[in-house]
């Protein structure tokens, strides 16, 4: 430890930044030297493949900032919301969207209620919620997949200006969420609650409500991802979420939002999801197999976690 401390003092602290900068430059250099990387189509592809994970990641960001660890039921929440979205298509797109967001907000908000007011452990609770959602969805629907009952959903697959709607949604939602975090009373209280919950409680902050609202908003964001996902796949069952839970966690962490809470931003999550999407894309373009793609994703997340940690703890004990 002492050598690290000394090192930090000697070559003034920025060595982690230099490292991060160098890594980013190297990434871009590798990208630029990869055939077809710097094409409009490829940039669009990166954005597109980042969009759904990104939107779900924004939701998770709220949960993490609030100091309530992570949700391990993102995949299931998204799948169930998507099933609702397709099942109520006959009522028209707007109604379907509203219903999906309400259901999504309810599913995750209910968990937030217990985490917020009951101080329940979010990891255990969301594992339980994952089981419950899978059980209920298969018990009620018999396990078959839901097909759309109308065609309104196709609007979500539109590509204004050649870019999928989900990318616009990601950007808009990032900006909106950042504004909420920076400017609203809720945002300030969320950061404080996340940093030190007992202190927030003793200060009389509405800890329960703040946490619950964060989870409700997270659920609404999961539902938005679900609507796009349902529209994109045109059918949905409980497995639709795939590996979304871990993808979203990886994106938030790769953005450098610490899991301990009290810190983080929507921008970071956007950066994280783009970083992972870009690297996956480069590896795919260069012809690496699935294994290598996954492995490099893990290494990147690891590197970012370490660098961000070193940066934020610099000069502190």
């Amino acid at each position, binding site marked *: 430890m*002492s050598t690290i*401390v000394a090192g930090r*003092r000697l070559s003034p*602290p920025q060595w982690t930044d230099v490292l991060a900068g160098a890594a980013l430059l190297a990434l871009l250099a590798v990208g630029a030297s990869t055939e077809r990387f710097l094409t409009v189509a490829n940039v669009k592809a990166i954005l597109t493949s980042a969009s759904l994970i990104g939107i779900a990641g924004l939701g998770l960001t709220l949960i993490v900032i609030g100091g309530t660890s992570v949700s391990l039921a993102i995949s299931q929440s998204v799948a169930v919301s998507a099933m609702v979205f397709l099942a109520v298509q006959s009522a028209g797109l707007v109604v379907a969207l509203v219903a999906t967001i309400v259901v999504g907000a309810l599913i995750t908000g209910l968990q937030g209620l217990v985490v917020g007011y009951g101080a329940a452990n979010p990891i255990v609770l969301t594992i339980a919620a994952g089981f419950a959602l899978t059980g209920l969805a298969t018990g009620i629907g018999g396990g078959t997949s839901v097909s759309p009952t109308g065609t309104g959903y196709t609007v979500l697959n539109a590509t204004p200006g050649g870019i999928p709607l989900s990318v616009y949604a990601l950007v808009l939602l990032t900006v909106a969420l950042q504004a909420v975090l920076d*400017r*609203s*009373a*809720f*945002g*300030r*209280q969320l*950061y*404080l609650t996340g*940093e*030190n919950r*007992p*202190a*927030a*409680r*003793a*200060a*009389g*902050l*509405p*800890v*329960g*409500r703040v946490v619950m609202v964060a989870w409700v908003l997270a659920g609404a964001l999961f539902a938005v991802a679900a609507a796009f996902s349902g529209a994109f796949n045109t059918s949905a069952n409980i497995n639709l979420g795939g590996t979304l839970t871990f993808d979203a966690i990886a994106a938030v962490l790769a953005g450098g939002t610490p899991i301990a809470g*009290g*810190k983080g931003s929507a921008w970071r999550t956007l950066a994280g999801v783009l970083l992972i999407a870009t690297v996956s894309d480069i590896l795919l373009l260069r012809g690496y197999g699935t294994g290598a793609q996954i492995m490099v994703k893990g290494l990147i997340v690891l590197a970012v976690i370490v660098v961000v940690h070193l940066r934020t703890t*610099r*000069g*502190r*004990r």
Partner: protein
Amino acid sequence: MSLIRVDGLSKSYAGTVAVRGVDLEIRAGEIHALCGHNGAGKSTVVRLLSGQESPDGGAIAIDGVPVELKTRRDAQTAGVALVDQELSVVPSLTVAENLVLGDRDAGWLNRRRAQHRRARRMLDDLGLTHVRPEQRLATLGLGERQLVEIARALGQRARLVILDEPTATLTDVESEHVYAAVRSVAAAGCAVLFVSHRLGEVLTLCDRVTVMRDGAVVTTSDAAALTVPTLIRHMLGESPQAAPRVRAESGETVLELTGVSVPGRFGELSLQVRAGTVYAVAGQLGSGASDVLRGLAGLHPAMAGEVTVGGARLRTADPVAAARAGIAFASNDRKSEGLFLDRSTGVNLLVTRIPALSRFGLVGTRRWKETESRLAERCGFPAHQLARPVGQLSGGNQQKAFVGRSLDRPGTRVLLLDDPTRGVDVGGRAAVHALVRDAAAQGVAVVFSSTELDELVDLADVVLTMYQGRLVSRHDEAVPGAVLLHEMTHGAEAG
């Protein structure tokens, strides 16, 4: 015959020089005090001597042999035992387990019976006769935990025992146990370094005193040659102006307790609290004094009885309801239950008034800034300190930020302060007292508890004494400390 000798020790943190060129020499069998204002660098010296941090420069020698203390373990091997400024025991372990934790003489095997026997003896030495070794530490109060930590340090076969503000959370009676135990290890030839803001105990307990100011040693002299005022002058370079003791006009009853109790903590309590008055709730550890404050703040789920604020009935056991009714609470544990250490001082001053600074759920940036500077000025923070993470301030300044957040706040009607000057130096203490008086002058009802008799006498308009969960008596006039002490320790009204 110096046991440990320190030459030119220095240490900086990210630009802040905490300790510069400190020379210090402690003899075997001596109790050596280290004094200084908040942020003077005392704890930094302690961390360097106990192996928690490595110095940037300087040398440490034990018995004339230079040592390098890179880890706690190194220091322990060199014979250094420590009571840290921060309470450092593990609540989830038993008392006996805590007493052997990290002790390098404890063997690799768990011998429960022997451990419990030894624990019994160590506890008895510090007056903890009612505490059982197999009890979990979590079931003890804050002060008892502190005593367990002291027992652990004193029980290790050390050459140098360092105690960093060991009595800050203790009442005078428990402190006496500590003094006796410290004297007996010193008599056995051990060197003791004793850090404290309680200047009285410094002068009566210690043999020599080293005073630090702004990271450097000002003087080292025999305790016998010092008085409290001279010590203060060394520490601060000047004498603080004690805030004039003006009794504010008592106003209406703002807070009324009828038959309030917390099972196992304190019984049926009825009380009327008036605006503009400073009340002290005085009691030993476990007397329930702290619990009254915590309960009123909504932090005791089991609290029963009726509480009204401004005539309106308060939902008990709900901190949000308490805050909304205008009750502001400052816990005695400002690190884990008080401040947001990574946030700026400014944010910490504003945490309780976010809704008031917002319109339609949005925070008004300009009003935020204005309020921030107004409060900073009131609490005496220079503008440049507002942006610093509050965790980097010295203890006294942290305490000021903590108390400051409840001041000058339109909604505050009752201010509850649990040990408001814990670990604060004389200067800071005067400042906090001034802040409290200001609040009372503006019509806020203040209820505080303290472990220090002097503070009870200095600050309170009305003193309530408690013993074993019961109210013993109420003093509306100035009262001698000895009377209070008798009531707190015997439960009966003196005389």
